[in-house]
């Protein structure tokens, strides 16, 4: 089985490029050039150096001894939380801005939900001295004050979006509309493996450095490249795509992904897109979407601001459809419990998104000989308000 994108831009029946005609030329230019650019030696040299010297890669693969004892298997943590700016998002932002420059674009737009991708994009724009406009739902602007301040200090213009529900999906709509209005000079840096082809593939490739490193690091530590399980959370699915990328065709490595169940998949306060979504088209891609029977997009809910997206990257819709990945719906409570457990056992406060992945350790069955790698996609600094409120009085 091939789980990568095909020539037409599809993963199985998911993907494609459903964008208005005004963007077709841009998308075509990108499609025709991205592989050539990303494979050129000078591009590889530049991105490798930035990932190493600027973003702080390789990130450690840490054997979590006390957590392993509790789980009853060997648990390694891939420490994306130690990247510059605090999450895996910087891997993609660095890659895409170099791509934008080689495509001759001078202005960057991005969407952000929790603000991690917005901060990563604002960061690389400061670094490259490029104009940066970040669209962010007004609700999120108010919820994620710290990240808004960071983006502004970095010199980005943060535009509060007041359409729709004023959250991530609306910010994405607005970023696409901006791109429609400025197709000649503007590059849209998408924050996850979503959007029209070739974006899902571009983002997956820039995040694939995660699994490239896991292979090397696990070989050193365990004498083998392949773990038994890889575990990651999925919002749009970029850290999971990066974690799985070099293992996709290797079916003996089991892929587990955590989506956000919110208050539970039998409630209407949930973001479990793969469990509950139906096929449709959102933000240029044919995928699973949380929607009403009449095709109106439903606003998802999760305690984690980075997982409440009503769609899912087409790669993940296909991995789930083909049975290649097993998808767990993790509730707010399971995630928060997992966060506290990691913090107390290992002294690592994870992002709430990552806590959803960690919660699978308590939900699935493992053998003592199993080698598991969990990607900790980000650190918990941005979530301290939510954590303190949730655990109020317990510390």
């Amino acid at each position: 089985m091939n789980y990568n994108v095909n020539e037409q831009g599809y993963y199985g029946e998911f993907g494609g490029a459903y964008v208005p005609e005004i963007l077709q030329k841009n998308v075509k230019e990108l499609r025709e050039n991205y592989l050539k650019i990303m494979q050129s030696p000078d591009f590889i040299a530049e991105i490798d150096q930035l990932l190493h010297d600027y973003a702080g890669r390789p990130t450690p693969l840490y054997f979590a001894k006390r957590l392993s004892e509790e789980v009853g298997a060997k648990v390694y943590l891939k420490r994306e939380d130690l990247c510059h700016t605090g999450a895996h998002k910087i891997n993609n932002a660095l890659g895409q801005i170099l791509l934008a420059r080689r495509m001759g674009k001078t202005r960057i737009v991005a969407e952000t939900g929790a603000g991690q991708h917005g901060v990563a994009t604002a960061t690389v724009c400061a670094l490259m001295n490029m104009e940066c406009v970040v669209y962010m739902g007004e609700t999120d602007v108010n919820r994620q004050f710290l990240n808004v301040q960071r983006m502004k200090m970095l010199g980005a213009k943060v535009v509060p979006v007041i359409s729709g529900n004023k959250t991530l999906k609306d910010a994405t709509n607005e970023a696409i509309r901006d791109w429609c209005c400025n197709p000649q000079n503007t590059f849209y840096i998408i924050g996850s493996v979503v959007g029209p082809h070739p974006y899902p593939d571009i983002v997956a490739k820039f995040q694939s450095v995660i699994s490239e490193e896991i292979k090397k690091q696990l070989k050193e530590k365990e004498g083998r490249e392949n773990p038994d399980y890889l575990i990651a959370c999925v919002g749009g699915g970029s850290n999971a795509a990066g974690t799985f990328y070099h293992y996709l065709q290797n079916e003996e490595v089991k892929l587990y992904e955590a989506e956000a169940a919110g208050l539970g998949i039998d409630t209407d306060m949930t973001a479990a897109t793969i469990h509950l979504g139906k096929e449709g088209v959102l933000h240029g891609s044919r995928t699973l979407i949380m929607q009403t029977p009449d095709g109106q997009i439903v606003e998802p809910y999760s305690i984690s601001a980075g997982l409440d997206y009503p769609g899912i990257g087409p790669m993940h819709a296909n991995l789930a459809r083909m049975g290649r990945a097993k998808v767990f719906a993790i509730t707010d409570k399971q995630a928060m419990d997992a966060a506290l457990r990691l913090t107390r056992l290992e002294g690592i406060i994870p992002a709430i998104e990552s806590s959803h992945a960690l919660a699978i350790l308590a939900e699935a069955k493992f053998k003592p000989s199993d080698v598991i790698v969990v990607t900790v996609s980000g650190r918990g600094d941005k979530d301290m308000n939510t954590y303190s409120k949730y655990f109020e009085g317990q510390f």
Partner: protein
Amino acid sequence: MDRIKRLFDSKKNEKILSVYFTAGFPKKDSTVDVIKALSDGGVDMIEIGIPFSDPMADGPVIQQSSQKALDNGMTQNLLFEQLKDIRKVTDIPLILMGYINTAMQFGFENLCKKAVEVGIDGFIIPDIPLEEYSSQYKPIVEKYGLKFILLITPETPEERIRKIDSASSGFIYMVSSASTTGAQNSFSEDKQRYFKKIADMNLKNPTLVGFGVSNKATFDAACEHSRGAIIGSAFIRALEEQPTVQDAVKSLISKL
């Protein structure tokens, strides 16, 4: 009976005015009233917008009208219910305009079937690109004898315009500018050059200009090198501001 062809054939020396509005706006049950008022007011063709929660190609005015229509309880089933007897009300071409996601949930073939039943003439679905249209949807559209109007823009290369012309039916929607929908006050010389360039290509389909047409200046500029123009946001705004739908139509026509 091909109403769109008949319209273009009969208006060889006059400009065509097509008007967009959102179904279920300003009130849930105003859909038929608006169609009747536009038709009585002398509009040549009507585009009936199917509201969508995430209209990526639309500016703020049409976005808000879509949201309002959805808040009013508008659905696709209800729309076809409302349009059941629309051919007793008007004989001008009626086109459904919407997004692919709602069409998929309704079932694309079901949408075509229902459209034919009530007397709809064609579709404009801006997020179905040429390639997807040709490979997945064209056979169904043609089976039902409907028209499918594709869009061209200032960014569309000549070779692609030729392909769009050969796949499109009814007419071609010429997007005036790199933008989302929304009223503009004037059209630059650049736009005129682009309109003229398209006119000089002698396409098989007639063209209408849309996006930004709002007043006499933009309407006349749009018409200079095309068969007519499409007005959307400016009419939605009139529907918001005027006390009745008849007044909104009057106000729109008086501005042209």
